[in-house]
């Protein structure tokens, strides 16, 4: 023990990590501290570790004038430990440069209490979510109300309907979706036929594959596939378009110029989808049945002529009409949700993503819900 303390008197203890930033000389009644090296951001961690090891049971005499380079982080670190040492013992800073002093004074003049934490209790979150869901519902009902008012107004002021925008959206949401809808329907038709074929072949009732494919595609799957693809494709696009306009304050600009956003942005999109979706459903029906036809030929050896013959017999027009009726309803649901979610975007980029997701999820869910509703109604009416 004695030997060590003797040694301390002779040799300066050098606290070393990889590089040294502090030289310590222990004297009888005091501890001399020399800051050296680069006191910059990149070495803060190492200096901090070395500072932690400084004993503060004696008076500290600190010399910072030999620091080769420093930045405000380095000075801040000095300030932090200077204040901490001062609480425990006497600290004397004996040498510093004028620039260091200036920097120290600048930092000392600009201090801040701790930044409050944004902590949220789970009950608080739950409450917020519940209120948000309720407000969303209320806002949506208000939105639908606005849309109907705008529609009613448009009925009597026919020239107010934005034909150009409508055609643009029919092109983008309708015509441009033909390929993907055709392909999806074709594949679904094939899958249905393949699956049905295995079961029907067991009973030797091969030809009934035509009934299965024809009726299920036209009544249920055609409208459903189309609506889901369009909800993913156009519903999200509507949200993103309107949301981006909201962020850049274009919507506010429109309002101040007296351009009603419902008339200029919402109605053209809703009308466009109401026109485009039934047409797409028709196309989807054709492609779905064609897919079934191809699969039947491959799997059950039912020729296309046979298939079409049978289709004439079993596929009543009523099935086609019942499927088609869903079109405009789905279209209204998808377009109004898409536009509504767009208006819900608040002025940050994060909410744009959230609302776009919500738009697609809501639209698909509502499409399926309305489809179920149609099934109940059709069954109730014995259709």
């Amino acid at each position, binding site marked *: 023990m004695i030997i060590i303390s003797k040694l301390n008197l002779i040799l300066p203890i050098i606290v070393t990590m990889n590089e040294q930033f502090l030289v310590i000389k222990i004297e009888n009644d005091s501890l001399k501290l020399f800051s050296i090296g680069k006191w*910059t*951001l*990149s070495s*803060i*961690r190492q200096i*901090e570790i070395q500072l932690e090891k400084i004993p503060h049971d004696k008076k500290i005499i600190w010399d910072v004038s030999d620091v080769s380079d420093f*930045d*405000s*982080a380095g000075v*801040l*670190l000095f300030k*932090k430990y200077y204040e901490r040492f001062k609480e425990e013992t006497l600290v004397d800073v004996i040498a510093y440069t004028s*620039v260091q002093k*200036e*920097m120290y004074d*600048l*930092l000392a003049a*600009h*201090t*801040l*209490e*701790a*930044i*409050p*934490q*944004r902590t949220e209790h789970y009950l608080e979150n739950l409450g917020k979510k519940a209120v948000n869901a309720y407000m969303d519902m209320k806002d949506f009902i208000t939105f639908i109300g606005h849309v109907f008012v705008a529609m009613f107004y448009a009925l009597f002021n026919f020239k107010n309907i934005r034909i150009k925008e409508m055609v643009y959206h029919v092109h983008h949401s309708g015509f441009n979706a033909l390929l993907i809808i055709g392909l999806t329907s074709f594949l679904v038709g094939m899958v249905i036929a393949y699956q049905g074929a295995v079961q029907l072949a067991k009973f030797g009732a091969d030809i009934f594959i035509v009934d299965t494919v024809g009726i299920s595609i036209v009544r249920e799957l055609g409208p459903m596939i189309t609506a889901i693809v369009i909800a993913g494709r156009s519903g999200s696009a509507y949200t993103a378009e309107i949301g981006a306009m909201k962020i850049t304050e274009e919507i506010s600009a429109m309002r101040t110029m007296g351009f009603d956003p419902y008339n200029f942005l919402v109605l053209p999109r809703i009308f466009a989808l109401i026109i485009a979706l039934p047409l797409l459903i028709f196309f989807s029906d054709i492609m779905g049945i064609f897919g079934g036809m191809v699969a039947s030929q491959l799997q059950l050896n039912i020729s296309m002529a046979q298939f079409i013959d049978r289709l004439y017999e079993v596929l009543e027009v009523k099935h086609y009409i019942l499927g088609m009726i869903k079109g405009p309803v789905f279209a209204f649901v998808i377009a109004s949700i898409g536009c509504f979610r767009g208006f819900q975007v*608040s*002025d*940050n*980029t*994060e909410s744009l993503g959230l609302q776009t997701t919500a738009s697609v999820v809501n639209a698909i869910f509502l499409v399926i819900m309305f489809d179920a509703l149609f099934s109940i109604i059709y069954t109730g009416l014995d259709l």
Partner: protein
Amino acid sequence: MSKDTVVIDVKDVITKFGERIVHDGVTLHINKNEIYGILGESGSGKSVLMKEMIMLLEPYDGKIAILGHTLNTIGYKEAQQLREEWGVLFQFGALYSSMTIAENIEVQLKEYTNISKQMRDELVRSKIALVGLDAHVGALYPSELSGGMIKRAALARALAMEPKLLFLDEPTSGLDPVGARHFDKLIKELRDMLGITVVMITHDLDSIFSIVDRMAVLADKHVVAQGTLENVLQSKHPFVEEFFKNEYTKHTYRDKIGLK
């Protein structure tokens, strides 16, 4: 002018967007420890020039060297190192909207250094105080802040990594006059104490007359005037005449522009 003192060296830069030529041989150099202003009318390519300096755009032709690194031939690693040495203040803040202000300032410290959480907090708080914001602002999200506060927060973020080089795109636009002068004073103080180099795009006459050491005026695809205020004032280019010697400046800054 020795080689060490030149921090940014731009030589014969040509920038084209399709057929449109923005710069047709822009040459300038920025020395260490100076506050350098880039001026020019809208559409003269000030922001584009700055974007080329911070490697967001590549010039069609010409050479840009920053802190001794030639940007035309810079490798990935070297570029990453260089990016840690500068701070950029974007015109509209460009704060990350999913993070609070404190997190925005902290993010680079967290990613690039091993500083303890406690010390990071101290650094963040010091930066927030330095730009004149209150503690509670640190817990807010950018969307909850006013334009002026976003500017300040963005400056705090630009300063977070203790940069040697600071790029400011219209730092005082959108600030109230008092805030703008505070901003100028802070930038000058930091420059004086830390020896950093500041490149700023600005239209603010007060900034130009009070803190800018040297400047370049961009017009007609070229640098039409360069140097200290005195040098620039000698230019007879119509933009310089219009900008510095209009009725307002003649009245307000008569001593600075050498009118009796």
